[in-house]
């Protein structure tokens, strides 16, 4: 029994790291631009396909593909911010929702058009490797994905904590008008924050491809989880998104074992309702 619990904790945390990486991008975009990016899941999907095709066409290892996916998705984020987000930045919430939901549908259909509805994954030499110790089994690609996700999250938190640009982004999220009055170029910070958010979720897609399937609507599955994580973490707290991601990973592992994996969406929904009832600002929210 104890071994089972430990195994579940390991499984949950490994999963949670990826959830955290997806969610932290969503939180950053929401915290800085005050926009809910409903197309977030589709950028995850594109990250998965990017890594998939780099492997299929050029034999690039999915983990190595991060070196291309991260900068490319950052630039894609800049462009999307410029073309789609910036025009609606001061628009009423409903228009903002239409814009990002619309983008999400367009991206799904583009993926469907080019790559069909097939399930695609990458099989590498290490895909099925497992570390076995003391009755525990740790899947190697899941472990690598977790380590990379945590490393990227730590790098992001350090960037925001230590660099001038990072501090300017945080300042903007806390008090926009003061940030303008201190000489911070708000438009530039919006671009950078959006670019980073998209780079994070693209990277999450790349590290998912060895352990999951890419298909045009895969984003919807993960973005639901990301929304629960963001609400659990407290909307505007990046550390909250990290810890929220790990918690949701654990919840999924335990509910899958003790209830049923098919009930996982129902379990998220229950958590969602409980948070809204008992702690609407989330675990780390600041109102």
């Amino acid at each position, binding site marked *: 029994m104890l071994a089972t619990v430990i195994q579940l904790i390991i499984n949950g945390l490994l999963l949670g790291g990826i959830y955290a990486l997806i969610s932290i991008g969503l939180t950053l975009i929401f915290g800085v631009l005050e926009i809910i990016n409903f197309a977030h899941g589709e950028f995850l999907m594109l990250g998965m396909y990017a890594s998939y095709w780099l492997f299929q066409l050029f034999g690039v290892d999915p983990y190595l593909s991060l070196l291309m996916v991260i900068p490319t998705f950052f630039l894609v984020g800049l462009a999307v911010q410029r073309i789609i987000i910036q025009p609606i930045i001061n628009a009423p919430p409903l228009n903002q929702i239409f814009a990002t939901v619309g983008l999400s549908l367009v991206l799904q259909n583009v993926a469907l058009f080019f790559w069909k509805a097939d399930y695609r994954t990458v099989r590498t030499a290490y895909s099925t490797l497992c570390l076995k110790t003391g009755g525990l089994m740790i899947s190697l690609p899941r472990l690598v994905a977790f380590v990379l996700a945590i490393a990227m999250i730590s790098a992001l938190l350090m960037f925001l904590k230590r660099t001038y640009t990072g501090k300017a982004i945080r300042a903007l999220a806390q008090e926009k008008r003061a940030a303008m*009055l201190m000489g911070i170029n708000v438009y530039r910070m919006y671009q950078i924050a959006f670019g980073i958010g998209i780079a994070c979720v693209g990277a999450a897609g790349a590290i998912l491809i060895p352990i999951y399937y890419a298909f045009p609507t895969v984003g919807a599955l993960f973005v639901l989880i990301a929304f629960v994580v963001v609400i659990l973490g407290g909307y505007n707290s990046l550390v909250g998104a990290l810890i929220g991601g790990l918690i949701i990973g654990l919840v999924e592992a335990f509910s899958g074992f003790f209830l049923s994996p098919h009930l996982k969406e129902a379990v998220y929904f229950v958590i969602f309702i409980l948070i809204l009832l008992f702690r609407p600002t989330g675990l780390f929210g600041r109102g």
Partner: protein
Amino acid sequence: MLSLENISAYYGDVQALRDISLRIKEGKIVTIIGSNGAGKSTTLNTISGVLRCASGKIEFLGGRIENLPPHQIVELGVVQIPEARLLFPYMTVLENLELGAYTPKARKGKEQNQEIVFGLFPVLEERKTQLAGTLSGGEQQMLAIARGLMARPKLLMLDEPSLGLAPLLVKQVFGTVKEINAQGITVLLVEQNVFHSLSIADEAYVLENGRVVLGGGGKEILENPRVKEAYLGI
């Protein structure tokens, strides 16, 4: 140094400023007084580029600045310390000061400037690792002024710095404003505390319903019977 000529500004369809004209000479303390809702903050925000200037022109050191983006106006040396302070509440005192020195020019002299600011407000040095949101009201106002000074302003605009402070602290704030001015920084002071601000001002303008209704020397305005009646209750 700064001149506004027939400025008007709107919130939606509502006109908040009508043909505002004023001049600020280098090295002076100029004050804008007026009751709540007169348009004082709107004037500062229009100068700062936060609010669109619908018509008229604004000149700073010989160049037009109306409707430049706010960060460019800061880079030129026009810095506003906003009403209600608007500190970055979840950042430390030190981080707030660092962000004050955000422009490339201000960043170069940051350490040196920080020394000067700590000289002016020693309590901020004691609290440098404390979160800004946890400071007392008086300390928050000091930090707001200090953060503005970190930007190395040529013209510093203060929006009701004495608001909500105890009488002793109010006196201290006006003392600080004089001290800042004595170091060569031109000051535009917006206040509802009419007596104190007119006492330290070289020039003053009275704003009512988005219009300049009176202008002149600080002492002169202080002696004006209409001002006495309307703002000083004498």
